[in-house]
């Protein structure tokens, strides 16, 4: 009613009142002449129906507001029926039925008093009848199924047609039961009374209240039916007031009485099952709650406890156990699983047939075991009869499955004599499904968090690793040096360095640790340590690499090795010596000719010192101005583009041959640019290191190295 503007309400009420006053005026006017005077019987009937029609939306609102709450609607009905019953009862006692007399089928009022009273009684009862009508309709339509709606609508049509057929007719109070329509209406009402859609959802207590209301309604409506069906003053009043509305009122009172009598019986009938219904409702809402809660619980144990508690409550069980992947505990659940009980502790549940139940449940979807009576139990379980005979409990075992993969087991136990019914199994299985999903979600979430943590640490490691490389190379006359290293997306193991050693020589290293990731990064740090320790005193690349092999063989794991090129520039005799330990070839560019130098040598960490030393070849070259030496790692030549094509050593050669570069930096830049053009999308899978050494003027080499030493 709140949403309806008050002026429409005022118009409806005013209009209805106006029409009732018109009826009163006509009744007064025709009191002393025939009731059919100037067809006034038609006019009065039409006016009174019209008035009721105006009140229809107002009453409809009252019902609609209460439709969601059947008990409130029933109470309103009880109050309305009670009031009308009292009014009618009082009138029966106060006024004799002789106030109206029957003259050739028509009722004639004895006094103006009777005219006035008939209007009041007629209005009140027909409004009440309309209310009963709307309430019944509301109750049936509220949550009813299609069949119920059709029957209810047929009933409505019958009642309206019956009422309309009486417009202008004589108020034959005694002929109601002869109406075939009414008999059909009663049959339909009886049919409808078997359907109590509004009742099922009520809880036990509410059903008891409903019983009381229904009893009162049966009493009031039954009383009214008795009073209005007889030759009483109110009966004659409503007949005189309006033949169609009188009929309508009487029929509604009778139908209401029938309906609520049946409803009373129905409510009584539903009362014992309401406990079960309530438990189902509780189970479903628990399941829904779990669905909501489970997404917020990250901790596996906390989740397990929630599942255990809910499972025990939902299955009406005494004990609950959950087996989940976890620390392997001897004698606790399947290998690799741990069994938890509700108190959170590991629980062996000693003597209980977990293994047998699990084996059977994994073969099907769930398994139940009735304590004490093993007849009719699955064959697999009967095989264990001797053991189970000692177990008096009833069990339910359900696997926790995600995507057909078993992630755990849920067990419930009840004392002997109680068993798990179909609904218990269904709801516990549903819980097991969503528990499996929740556990899986929490696992994935934990994994994701762990992965993010690792990624952060990897980034940190990457930046740490960058710091292991020299920040800046000295700019020196005589030697033009440039080096750069592009780290892969993962941390890698490329290393380069240049130090001034104890013998006044320049020691240069480019190395590559096998593999990728954290292991390679650690080894790269080890390589730096070896270079800084051994490289200081080594007189030749051969000496350095043999020592490095010895040092690294002790610290590398059996899968790992290091490849390296080591060079020493000797200023006193203006030469450069270098050796290759399993590393990529060294490119020498001289007068636009490219030579790949591949002195023999194995990777570090591959073989014993003797084998390594025997295979190692050292090369000594003079410092020729204009000669450029390019040291690189295999990340450069093995760079791949999406199609799978490698950058390759040939491309590298052509690149170096193509142009005469003005400086070491220009040479390195050309290489890097070419690499970027080759695989522009970045995300390199391996580190790429390029170190370019260019002899500018050999006379200056000596002073240059002395400068580094300063």
């Amino acid at each position, binding site marked *: 009613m709140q949403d309806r503007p008050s002026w429409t309400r005022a118009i409806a009420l005013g209009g209805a009142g106006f029409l009732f006053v018109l009826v009163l005026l006509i009744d007064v006017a025709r009191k002393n002449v025939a009731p059919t005077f100037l067809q006034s019987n038609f006019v009065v009937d039409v006016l009174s129906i019209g008035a009721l029609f105006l009140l229809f939306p107002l009453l409809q609102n009252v019902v609609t507001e209460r439709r969601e709450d059947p008990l409130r609607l029933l109470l309103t009905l009880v109050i309305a029926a009670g009031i009308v019953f009292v009014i009618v009862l009082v009138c029966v006692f106060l006024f004799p039925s002789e106030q109206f007399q029957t003259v050739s089928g028509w009722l004639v009022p004895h006094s103006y008093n009777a005219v006035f009273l008939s209007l009041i009684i007629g209005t009140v009862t027909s409004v009440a009848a309309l209310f009963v009508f709307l309430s019944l309709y509301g109750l049936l339509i509220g949550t009813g199924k299609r069949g119920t709606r059709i029957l209810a609508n047929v009933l409505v049509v019958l009642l309206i047609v019956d009422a309309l057929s009486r417009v202008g007719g004589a108020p034959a109070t005694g002929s109601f039961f002869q109406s075939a329509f009414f008999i059909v209406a009663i049959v339909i009402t009886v049919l409808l009374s078997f359907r109590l859609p509004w009742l099922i959802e009520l809880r036990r207590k509410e059903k008891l209240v409903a019983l009381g209301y229904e009893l009162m309604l049966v009493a009031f409506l039954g009383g009214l039916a008795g009073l209005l069906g007889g030759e009483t003053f109110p009966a004659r009043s409503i007949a005189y007031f309006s033949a169609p509305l009188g009929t309508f009122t009487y029929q509604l009172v009778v139908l209401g009485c029938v309906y609520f009598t049946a409803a009373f019986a129905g409510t009584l009938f539903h009362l014992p099952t309401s406990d079960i219904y309530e438990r189902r409702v509780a189970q479903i809402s628990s399941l829904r709650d779990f669905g909501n809660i489970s997404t917020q619980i990250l901790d596996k144990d906390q989740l397990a406890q929630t599942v255990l508690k809910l499972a025990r409550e939902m299955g009406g069980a005494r004990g609950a156990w959950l087996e989940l992947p976890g620390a392997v505990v001897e004698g606790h659940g399947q290998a690799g699983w741990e069994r938890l009980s509700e108190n959170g502790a590991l629980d062996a549940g000693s003597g209980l047939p977990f293994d047998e139940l699990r084996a059977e449940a994994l073969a099907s979807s769930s398994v139940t075991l009735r304590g004490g009576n093993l007849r009719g139990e699955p064959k697999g379980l009967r095989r264990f009869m001797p053991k189970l005979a000692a177990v008096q409990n009833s069990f339910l075992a359900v696997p926790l499955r995600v995507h057909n993969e078993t992630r755990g087991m849920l067990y419930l136990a009840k004392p002997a004599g109680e068993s798990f019914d179909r609904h218990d199994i269904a709801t516990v299985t549903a819980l097991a499904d969503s528990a499996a999903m929740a556990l899986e979600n929490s696992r994935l979430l934990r994994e994701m968090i762990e992965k993010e943590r690792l990624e952060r640490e990897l980034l940190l490691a990457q930046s740490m690793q960058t710091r292991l490389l020299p920040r800046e190379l000295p700019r020196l006359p005589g030697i033009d040096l440039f080096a750069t290293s592009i780290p892969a997306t993962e941390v890698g193991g490329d290393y380069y360095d240049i130090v001034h050693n104890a013998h006044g020589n320049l020691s240069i290293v480019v190395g590559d640790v096998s*593999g*990728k990731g954290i292991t390679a990064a650690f080894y790269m740090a080890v390589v730096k340590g070896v270079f800084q320790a051994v490289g200081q005193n080594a007189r030749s690349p051969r000496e350095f690499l043999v020592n490095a092999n010895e040092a690294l063989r002790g610290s590398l794991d059996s899968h790992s090795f290091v490849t390296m090129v080591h060079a020493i520039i000797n200023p006193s005799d203006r030469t450069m010596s270098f050796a290759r330990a399993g590393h990529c070839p060294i490119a020498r560019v001289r007068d636009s000719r490219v030579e790949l130098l591949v002195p*023999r*040598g194995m990777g570090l960490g*591959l073989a014993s010192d003797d084998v390594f030393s025997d295979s190692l070849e050292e090369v000594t070259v003079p410092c020729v101005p204009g000669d450029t030496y390019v040291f690189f790692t*295999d990340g450069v030549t093995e760079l791949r583009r999406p199609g*799978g094509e490698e950058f390759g050593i040939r491309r590298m050669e052509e690149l170096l041959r193509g142009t005469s570069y003005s400086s070491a930096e220009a040479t390195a830049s050309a290489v890097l640019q070419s690499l970027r053009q080759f695989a522009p999308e970045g995300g390199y899978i391996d580190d790429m290191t390029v170190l370019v050494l260019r002899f500018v003027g050999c006379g200056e080499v000596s002073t240059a190295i002395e400068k580094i030493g300063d």
Partner: protein
Amino acid sequence: MDEFGIKVSQQGDVSVLRVKGYLDAHTAPELEKRMQELISQDRVRLVMELAELEYISSAGLGVFMAYVDEVRGRGGDIKFSSLTPRVYTVFDLLGFPILYEFFPETGEAVKRFPHADSADRGRA
């Protein structure tokens, strides 16, 4: 890019592992697993037939290094056969030919296991 794959066949008491595709950090564990299986069955005479191996990374090379000592300690060996020149270059640069035997044909590699045939016949 061909799918990585390993096919193991027996030639007498020599196990031939046909490795194809890319042997890198992602696929190396699979090769490692197969080798462990063979070694646990005391099959320590191994020939790696690498004709269809397109690429090998340092992680792939590491697998051979990891098992050679154990295999040789139990009287067996790891030999290589049918490598493409490109893949052979990778082995060669690292110095593998100093430590391992390489053959152009698998049959030749199998034959080079001492007493392989006679041992086999003896057992049968």
